[in-house]
């Protein structure tokens, strides 16, 4: 479980996050939704410590992350996997080296064991025979899968995904969403996913937090989100041609 307590974050004079408090449950896919520019990425980066918060706290299962130094955070970081918007694969390394990287860095297992783990996670994300390809040789969807494989290589307790289906076609998006949901339940991970895609919300949203202009505006789940009278949320949910027609 991850808890955000009254997080504030400003960039210069731009107050991006305003007193955001939220709980994210274990074994569930917890979504953060909102328009582009509403502060989803900033919130996620504050949770993992890529940005320092101005005020507020982030608690990882009773451990106060906000007051730790780099060395103390390193222990928690090894329990975190993160999937970045552009996949962020190391482009000078093969798929195999990418996935093995955290294992090489933080474990002392023999090569064979690491290799076995890499094969296992690649298989888990339904990739085969790509070990020796470079990231530039993969399609967008495959890069996402490799990034997921790398994120779960160390058996994380916490998984963060920033717009996992940005730049993918709807069908591939669905596959990636489902994969994240399955892995979350299978390994009982606390998963947090940023998205503005209503398909993902309705198929995977165990909990849903709606961020509007940097404030936590609404909390619920994939079922309650269709029956709310919150105006800003309705504008967001029924903002597209498809969803508004469905509503009628």
């Amino acid at each position, binding site marked *: 479980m991850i808890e955000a307590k009254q997080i504030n974050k400003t960039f210069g004079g731009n107050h991006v996050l305003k007193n955001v408090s939220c709980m994210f449950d274990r074994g569930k896919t917890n979504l953060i939704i909102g328009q582009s520019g509403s502060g989803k990425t900033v919130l996620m980066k504050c949770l993992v410590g890529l940005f320092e918060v101005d005020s507020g706290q982030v608690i990882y299962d009773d451990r106060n992350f906000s007051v730790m130094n780099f060395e103390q955070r390193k222990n928690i970081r090894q329990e975190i996997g993160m999937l*970045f918007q552009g996949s962020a694969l190391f482009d000078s390394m093969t798929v195999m080296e990418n996935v093995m990287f955290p294992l090489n*860095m933080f474990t002392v297992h023999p090569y064979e064991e690491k290799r076995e783990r890499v094969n296992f996670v690649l298989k888990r994300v339904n990739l085969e025979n790509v070990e020796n390809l470079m990231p530039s040789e993969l399609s967008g969807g495959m890069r996402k899968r490799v990034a997921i494989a790398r994120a779960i290589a160390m058996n994380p307790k916490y998984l963060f995904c920033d717009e996992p289906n940005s730049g993918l076609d709807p069908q591939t998006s669905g596959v990636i969403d489902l994969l994240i949901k399955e892995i979350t339940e299978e390994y009982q991970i606390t998963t947090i996913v940023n998205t503005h895609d209503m398909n993902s919300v309705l198929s995977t949203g165990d909990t849903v937090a709606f961020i509007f202009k940097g404030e936590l505006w609404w909390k619920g789940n994939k079922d309650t989100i269709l029956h709310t009278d919150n105006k800003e949320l309705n504008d967001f949910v029924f903002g597209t041609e498809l969803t508004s027609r469905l509503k009628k």
Partner: protein
Amino acid sequence: MKLFDSIGRYVILMSRVFTKPQKAKIFRHRLFDEFQHLGIESLGIVAFISMFMGAVVAIQTAYNIDSPLIPLSMVGFTVRQSVILEFSPTVISLILAGKVGSRIASEIGTMRVTEQIDALEIMGVNSANHLIFPKIVASLIMNPILIVFSMWLGILGGWIAMMASKLVTSTDYVYGIRLDFEGFTIFYALFKTLFFAFIISSVSGFYGYETRGGALEVGQASTKAVVVSSILIILFNLVLTQLLLT
């Protein structure tokens, strides 16, 4: 104000760079990669420029000696002095600032804007140390080797030019090269080289690491890295020359 701000951020970054690598084996691996990228791959351009510059200095000197009182061995002497004292350590370092500096800044800058640096940090890796430290160490080791190589080739280029043009005999040229040779000049040149190597790799690493935005900003960071390290090389060359030769 902005200058002091940059210097402050540079110092903070360097304090993160100079820490113990997480895994010695991975560090060694990256170091050998950088020997290749920053050193071996620069051999060609260094050889080309050194040979031709040595040749030009020799030809210029030979044509400008028209008094019979000045012995022709002065040609070898002049080539040796100018190549060892200034041409190899300073001019070749400037060339390397262009070649190696832009490579470092664009590589690290690209990793920044594509969130690869964030990915390292998330895993708990000190990205500044992981990315920049091997480049600095590799430059400190490879640049002196390149510069000594350049000295040899510069002097050789002068000799070849003299043989081809028949302006000076081989005996005279070689006599000039050996005339009043002081080992200190090599020490002086290598000291400067080490200093410049540190400027090139750390300043370029800094501009790459500080990149924010996209492809355009990566290009700008790489240009800035080259310009700033070149200016610093020229400035410190003056300071070091004053300090070491007086």
